[in-house]
Structures are given as structure tokens and as C-alpha cells.
């Protein structure tokens, strides 16, 4: 007896170890970015890095909505003041104080390097005279108080030109000094977070802090005012929360139904709990395996992995269904093991195709499912039988079930009919077979997507879809290349192909250009003489322009300005979003605004003959990337199917048997795809992944239906077991099919239909008992 107990001991030790590792080492990530594909080309990889951690991902759009514009303006000022002190927030814009005094200082000191009008002729006597006349005009005009402070050090007006450039974007309307929507019901703010948009936990914390700050400044006064938020970070959090909420109640519902159903089937609480052991052991060991290999487990891997492991829940059910008074549980297990083993092995082949997909999300999922499946099978084989109480027998199986089986076998013709119908449906349906728009798979709610569009429109913020990417080996090369591209972009704008653009060269000139500007500055003696002549007859105070003479002299030998000069300021953030270094390569990203004719832009940019400049439609690019991975997964599935067939052939050693196992699965897959398509859904990567589960289930059903040993009562038990298996699967995934989240719905619908089809088809095609009358 003791010898029979040793598997329990081994299992207990493993579980304890795994639990310990889970408690101490497990790190569950929720950053969606970790699961994104890495891209195949260097540019793609760099671009994806930017999408993950770049400015676009870190930007939150806020709106304070209410009926009284004055109150909104007050709240906007108070809220932005609060948020600027937050450690996780880099920048808050609400229309006031576009540039801080320190930043203005920085730009002012570098005015002769940054201003595009610095050229030799700008410092001639005539040009200086004209500039001084202009300053007099300004002093006479209502502009005087704002410009007069700059006149002594900058009589040629370089600084104001730079300022205009830096704040030269299409700003929203203003009300009481802050940004406000055109209808004055929303005060607008923009927040740049330190954390990436995909970092769900950090984003959640920041967004909660923003809401708390808002409640604080709002006080008790205005119940009709509310805070709206959008941006990639908000989407991430919303998606995560929705999934968590739906998964929680759907799985609670499914678990309750399965529990009740299993209890009704076996009338034993012990067995119901025992049936959980293989699955939970599989989940635990799978988690530890993924964590050890990848260094972390993603929350999504866990969710989907447990879905795929659903097939492992069938194993204990087979065991329990085959128990009889005459045979001990270990003996029963030994009897059904060859069939189960073949099912496990072939399902594992199917799952392993995920490992090779080259998509981090799928690789994690593959490893998890593979290890979990193996663990569950081993636990069912060695541990479970020892735990089953002696003398347990399941309920008597009702005789009419067997009659049903007879009908099924007589209705073989249903299988080709269903396949033909599904094929016709697929051909006639207007729904495209594959979903090519990732956005449609996104679980973000329509309301949230609409709000995002509205706020972006009101803010004049680019939606970061259309980008011009410039590559170069060094920072200087990049800036020179970008300077060459700038007039071409102006051409695009003049031709109406883009409404506007941002480009790093607008702000940071190349070293070459800065040197040219320095050479254009006259030395002090020359400048003093020219200025004296220029000011003749004008009423400027004597010695007024001493700061100008000193400033120009300093600028002649000033070190050039580059990206690092702006480090640690909001200006630096802006530049950091427009140019970046990645593994020794330099990249400028120019967001284009208002692109309608994307083909036109593509053609024009291609016509420039600049190999280092590429136009990227980020949406099309990410869709294309996703489709590439889907195609690769489908391709791997075919190889997996071939491997499964070979393994089955070897295991079954009989062609007719192989036929009877394979046909229901293939037919099941075709019919499921047909049902999904005809119901108006296009297939995504998630459907494909779920088809793997369907294959696993189908193998399990077909193998058990075709067990050579099954005769008489034994066959009834098999059928009963399969019915229990299939019903539990349909209960669990049927619940998921009711989810409002497209991904969960896709999985639920595919798996539930697949389970039903595979069971029916396997039943139709199963070899009828030769000696049944």
C-alpha cells in the first residue's frame, strides 16, 4: 500500500516547491507592451519601442466638463497646479505658461544659434537700422510692455521669432487664460506621464492620483462638473479593468454551473474536488515554468493559458466515468491510459506550435499550456487514482443514452452535409474570413474611443498614426538629413497632402548650420560701428545696446546646442519624442497631421529618392505586423496538424481508425470556422489560438469514441464520460461567449461550438459495436 502512495508524496513535494516558488519568485506583469511583437526590421523594432515608451504612449488628454466656463477655467488652473507637483508626471499643459522662465532663459541664451534668420546680411547697417525702426514701432504700439524688456539684448528680434516657432502649433481656443473647447463646456489639459502607456499598474496609480487631485480642487461646490480622461494609458487601464471584471463574473458563473453539473453527474463532492487537482496542478507548474524561462508571467498568458488547459479537465472525468465495482481506480486508469496518452501527446504537439510563433505572447502561452497539460496528465495518471475512495461507482447510466448513440452512428450523412453547408456559408458570406483591422479586436469601449477622437480634435493633437521616419548613423547626420527634408515637407503641406507636421529641425539645428550662423556674426568692433550708424537719428538711450554687443560676441564662440542641452526640461521631452537613439542608430520621427490621401503621401515620399526617409502609417503597419504573426501561426498549425497525424498513425496502427479520429476533427474545424464567419465575425489571432483547444478536445473525444477495448457497459461509460466532458466545456466557454470583450467572446464562441461539433461528429463517425444487435 505504501508503495502505491509514493506518487502522492512526489506530487506533494513538487506542489510545495512550486507554491514556494510562486510565493517568492513569481512576477506577474500587466504591461501589454511586453506581449507586443518585436518587429522584424530594425526600423520596426525601433518604432515599436517608441510606441511603447515614447511620448505618444505617455500622453493623457484631460477635459473638465461643466456648464460654467469661468468655473472650468478656475478648476483647470487649480488642477494643473496640483498635478505639476506630482512625481510621476513630467509635464502638464493647460494653456498657461507654455514655457517656464528657465526654458525661456535657455532659448534666449542660444538665440543666435537657434534663429533661422541669422545670416551675414542680417547684421548689415541697413538691416540693423530697419530692425531698430521696427523696435520703435513696437514701443509705440500696444505690444510695448511685452517686448521692451528684450530690446536691449535682442534688437534684431531673434528671441521672439524662436518663441513663436516653439509655440507654433494649432492651439485650442482659450478662455480666461486656459485651453477650452469651442463650445466652452470643456477645459482641456494635456499630461505627460513618466510611465509608459502600456504600464497598466503605474498608469492606474497616476490616473487615480489625477482623479483624487480633481476631487480635491473640486471640493463640494460643483456636482455638475466632471473629469474626462483619454489616451493610451487610459485605454490600457480600461481594457485591463474590463477584462478583470468580465473574467471574474463569467468564470464565477461558469465555475458554479460546472460544479453543479459535475455534482449532478457523480453525486460525490469528493470527486468534484478531486477533478480540480490535475487542472490546478497544471496551472501551478505551468506558471512556475513560464516564470523561470521568461522571467515573468503575463496576466494575459495566465488567462488564456487556463483556457487552453480546459482540455485537461477532461482527463479526471474519463477516469471517474470508467470506474466500476469490479476494478480498482488504479486498474481503471491503467486501462484507459493508452487512449488518454495518445490524446495528451497529440494535443501537446498542437500546443507546441504556439512556442514557435515568435510572438512573445504566444510563446508564453505555448509553454504554459504545454507544461500545464503534461502536469495535468501525469497527475491524472499517477496521483488521482490513489486518491479515489475505494468502492466508488458513478451513477447508473440511463439506457436511452445508448440508444442516442445508435442514432448518431446511423446519421453519418450529417457530417458531410454539415461540412458542405459550412463551406457554402463561407463562400457566400460577405464577412471577410480574416479580421485585418486590429482596432476592431480592441476591447476598448466605443464611448472611450469616441471621447479620444473628440479630445484629440479639440486639442489639435496628432493621433500619431502617420509618421515620417528619418534614419541616420549619427546625431549630426540625422539633423542634416532632417534639414534637407524640411522644405520637402513644406511642399507636402502646400500641396494639401498634409495639414501640418512636426520635425526636430524646427527646434534643433545641425552643428553645421549653427557654425554657419556663428560665422555670420560680425565681431564686436564691426558690430558696434554698424550699430552706431544704424541708430543715428533714432531716440534710443546711449549705451542701451551694450547687452546686444556682448551677447553676439559670446555667441560667436558659444558651444553648439544639441539634444542634451534641453535635458530635463519639457522642451527636452518634446525633442526626445522627435529624435531618439537606439542601439547606436539615430532616428527622427515626424508626426504628420491631417493626412487623408495616404497613397498620395506614400507615392510623393517615395518620389523624393531619399532611402533614409520612410513614410509609415502606424495603423496599417501594426495591422500588417499582426497579420504576419497570424499567418505564421496558421502555417505552424499546418505543420502541427501533420505531426499530429503522423503521431496518431503510429499510435493507432490502423488507417481506418486514423480516419475515424481525424475526420471529425477536420470537419469540426471547418464547421466552427463556418459558424463564426456566417455569424458575422472575422477570424483573428485569438480565434486561431482557440482552434488549437478545439483540436485538443476533438482528439480527446475521437480517441475515446474509437477505443478498441470498449464493449457493452464499458462503452456506455465512455460515452457518459464524453458527454460530461463536452458539457463542462460548453458550459465554461458558452459563458465566455456572452462576454462583451471581443477577444473573450471569440474564444468562448469558438471553443463552445468546437466542443459540440467535435463530439457530435466523433459520435457520428465512431465505429458501431460489431456485436450490438
Amino acid at each position: 500500500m505504501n508503495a502505491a502512495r509514493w506518487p502522492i508524496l512526489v506530487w506533494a513535494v513538487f506542489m510545495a516547491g512550486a507554491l514556494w516558488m510562486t510565493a517568492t519568485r513569481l512576477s506577474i506583469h500587466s504591461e501589454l507592451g511586453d506581449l507586443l511583437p518585436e518587429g522584424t526590421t530594425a526600423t520596426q523594432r525601433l518604432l515599436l519601442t517608441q510606441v511603447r515608451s515614447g511620448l505618444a504612449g505617455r500622453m493623457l488628454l484631460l477635459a473638465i466638463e461643466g456648464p460654467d466656463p469661468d468655473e472650468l477655467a478656475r478648476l483647470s488652473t487649480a488642477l494643473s497646479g496640483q498635478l505639476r507637483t506630482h512625481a510621476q508626471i513630467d509635464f502638464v499643459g493647460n494653456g498657461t505658461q507654455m514655457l517656464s522662465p528657465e526654458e525661456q532663459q535657455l532659448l534666449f541664451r542660444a538665440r543666435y544659434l537657434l534663429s533661422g534668420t541669422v545670416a551675414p546680411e542680417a547684421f548689415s547697417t541697413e538691416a540693423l537700422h530697419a530692425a531698430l525702426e521696427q523696435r520703435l514701432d513696437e514701443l509705440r504700439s500696444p505690444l510695448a510692455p511685452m517686448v521692451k524688456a528684450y530690446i536691449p539684448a535682442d534688437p534684431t528680434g531673434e528671441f521672439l521669432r524662436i518663441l513663436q516657432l516653439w509655440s507654433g502649433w494649432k492651439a485650442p481656443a482659450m478662455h480666461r487664460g486656459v485651453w477650452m473647447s469651442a463650445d466652452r463646456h470643456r477645459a482641456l489639459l494635456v499630461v505627460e506621464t513618466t510611465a509608459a502607456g502600456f504600464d497598466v499598474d503605474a498608469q492606474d496609480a497616476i490616473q487615480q492620483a489625477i482623479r483624487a487631485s480633481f476631487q480635491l480642487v473640486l471640493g463640494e461646490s460643483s456636482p455638475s462638473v466632471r473629469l474626462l480622461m483619454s489616451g493610451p494609458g487610459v485605454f490600457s487601464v480600461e481594457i485591463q479593468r474590463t477584462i478583470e471584471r468580465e473574467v471574474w463574473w463569467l468564470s464565477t458563473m461558469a465555475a458554479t454551473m460546472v460544479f453543479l453539473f459535475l455534482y449532478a453527474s457523480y453525486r460525490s463532492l469528493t470527486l468534484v474536488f478531486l477533478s480540480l487537482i490535475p487542472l490546478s496542478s497544471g496551472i501551478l507548474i505551468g506558471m512556475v515554468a513560464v516564470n523561470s524561462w521568461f522571467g515573468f508571467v503575463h496576466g494575459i498568458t495566465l488567462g488564456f493559458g487556463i483556457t487552453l488547459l480546459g482540455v485537461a479537465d477532461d482527463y479526471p472525468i474519463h477516469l471517474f466515468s470508467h470506474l466500476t465495482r469490479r476494478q480498482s481506480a488504479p486498474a481503471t486508469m491503467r486501462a484507459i491510459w493508452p487512449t488518454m496518452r495518445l490524446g495528451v501527446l497529440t494535443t501537446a504537439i498542437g500546443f507546441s506550435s504556439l512556442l514557435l510563433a515568435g510572438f512573445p505572447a504566444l510563446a508564453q502561452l505555448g509553454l504554459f499550456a504545454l507544461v500545464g497539460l503534461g502536469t495535468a496528465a501525469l497527475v491524472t495518471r499517477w496521483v488521482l487514482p490513489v486518491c479515489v475512495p475505494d468502492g466508488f461507482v458513478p451513477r447508473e447510466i440511463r439506457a436511452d443514452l445508448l440508444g442516442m448513440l445508435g442514432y448518431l452512428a446511423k446519421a453519418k450523412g450529417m457530417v458531410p452535409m454539415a461540412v458542405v453547408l459550412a463551406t457554402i456559408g463561407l463562400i457566400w458570406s460577405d464577412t471577410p474570413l480574416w479580421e485585418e483591422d486590429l482596432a476592431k479586436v480592441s476591447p476598448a469601449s466605443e464611448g472611450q474611443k469616441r471621447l479620444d477622437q473628440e479630445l484629440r480634435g479639440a486639442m489639435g493633437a496628432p493621433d500619431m498614426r502617420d509618421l515620417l521616419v528619418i534614419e541616420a548613423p549619427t546625431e549630426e547626420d540625422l539633423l542634416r538629413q532632417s534639414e534637407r527634408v524640411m522644405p520637402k515637407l513644406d511642399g507636402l503641406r502646400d500641396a494639401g497632402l498634409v495639414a501640418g507636421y512636426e520635425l526636430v529641425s524646427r527646434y534643433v539645428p545641425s552643428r553645421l548650420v549653427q557654425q554657419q550662423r556663428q560665422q555670420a556674426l560680425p565681431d564686436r568692433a564691426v558690430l558696434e560701428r554698424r550699430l552706431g550708424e544704424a541708430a543715428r537719428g533714432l531716440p534710443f538711450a546711449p549705451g542701451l545696446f551694450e547687452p546686444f554687443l556682448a551677447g553676439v560676441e559670446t555667441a560667436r564662440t558659444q558651444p553648439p546646442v544639441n539634444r542634451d542641452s534641453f535635458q530635463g526640461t519639457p522642451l527636452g521631452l518634446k525633442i526626445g519624442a522627435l529624435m531618439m537613439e537606439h542601439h547606436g542608430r539615430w532616428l527622427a520621427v515626424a508626426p504628420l497631421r491631417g493626412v487623408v490621401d495616404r497613397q498620395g503621401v506614400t507615392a510623393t515620399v517615395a518620389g523624393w529618392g531619399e532611402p533614409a526617409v520612410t513614410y509609415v502609417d502606424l495603423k496599417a503597419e501594426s495591422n500588417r505586423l499582426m497579420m504576419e504573426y497570424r499567418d505564421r501561426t496558421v502555417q505552424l498549425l499546418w505543420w502541427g496538424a501533420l505531426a499530429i497525424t503522423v503521431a496518431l498513425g503510429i499510435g493507432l496502427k490502423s488507417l481506418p481508425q486514423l480516419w475515424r479520429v481525424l475526420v471529425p476533427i477536420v470537419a469540426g474545424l471547418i464547421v466552427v470556422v463556418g459558424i463564426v464567419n456566417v455569424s458575422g465575425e472575422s477570424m483573428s489571432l485569438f480565434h486561431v489560438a482557440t482552434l488549437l483547444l478545439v483540436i485538443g478536445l476533438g482528439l480527446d473525444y475521437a480517441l475515446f469514441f474509437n477505443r478498441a477495448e470498449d464493449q457493452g457497459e464499458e462503452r456506455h461509460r465512455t460515452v457518459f464520460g464524453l458527454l460530461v466532458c463536452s458539457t463542462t466545456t460548453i458550459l465554461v466557454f458558452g459563458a465566455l461567449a456572452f462576454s462583451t470583450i471581443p477577444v473573450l467572446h471569440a474564444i468562448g464562441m469558438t471553443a463552445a461550438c468546437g466542443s459540440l461539433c467535435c463530439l457530435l461528429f466523433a459520435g457520428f463517425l465512431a465505429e458501431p459495436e460489431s456485436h450490438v444487435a
Partner: protein
Amino acid sequence: MRSRKILVLGVWLLTGTLALAAESQQSRGEQMGNGWTVEQVVALLKEGREPSVSFEEATYSSLLTEPLIVRGVLRFTPPSTLEKEVLEPYRERYVIEGDRVTFESERKRVKKTISLEDYPALRSFVEAFRASFTGDVARLKQVYDTTVEGSSRQWALLLRPRDSAGRSMVESLTLAGSEGQIETITIRSPDGDRSVMTLSRGSAK
């Protein structure tokens, strides 16, 4: 930056408005006693309406050795259109109509329109102007600290912007006059520079 510019423009326009209103009182020749109050000034401003008045404005600045002079005409068209036209040494026009400000310069080939709504500072000045014309002293006092000095022979109405944004550009506005006539409007900025607008009737076109 832009709003500060507009604020100054607002001061300019407003002073013109007050000048027009006060100017019109001159003809009424009302008696001014020692009990001269803001309420009385505003009451007179409310009633008065003169189509146009000439001005000469001198800007004194620490940057300059001599003041800069601008001459032109202020016009008011009911119900709420105000125009400041510069004639010398160049031609430029500023027009406030309802909540829109139009700036026009032939020399610079510029004509642009901005909304008063976008500029809280300017709006407070225009509110003051409208408050004056509707006799709404409460509103005027909401935007400015008001002081009246002197006697009816030689008086001064001192306006200090209440909000800090206004004060950072304009320290005070002083309307000085004798009997029912405004003679000068002085705008002082915090750095000590000032502009003095001298008004005269009769030369308007």
C-alpha cells in the same frame, strides 16, 4: 504672451473709451462739487456719447531719450463698436466690435481678428468699459480699485487692476480732468515707464 499684448491693447482702447465718454460731459457743463464720486463719474460716462475725438499719445520709456508720439482719432459707434485709428507717424486701426478685436495695418499688410473671449485680461477691461456705459459701478469696482482725488476744478480718477495678471502689465490708469472734461489719461507700467494720452475735441473727421 499673446494675452499680455492684448491686455495692453485693451488698456489703450479702454482709455480711449473713457476719454470719449468723459469728453461728451464737457458740453453738458454739469456742476462738480466736493462730493465727486466714482458713481458720479460713471453716471456721466453712461449718459455721454460723442462720435469721435482726437488724441496725442506720448510714450516715455527708460529705453528712450525722448518720448515717442502717436496721433490719431478715437471713435465710438453705438451700441458697442470702438475704434482707435492711428494717423501719424503711420496708419493703423484697432476695432473692438462685440467680442471681436480687429487689427489692421496697411504698412505691415496685416489684418487679423481675435476673440475677446480668448483673452481674460482684455475682457476684464472691456467689461469695465461696458460697465461704465451701462452705469454699472459695481462691475467697475469689481475689476479695479477706484479712487477719486481733487476737486471739481482739478480731479483725478485712479484705477488699479484688481487681479494680479492685470497688475503685472499695468500698475494704474489715471484719468485727470477739470470740471466735465478729461484732459489726460496716464497709463503707468510697473517698471516706471508711462504713456500719456492728451485729448482734444474738434479736430475729428
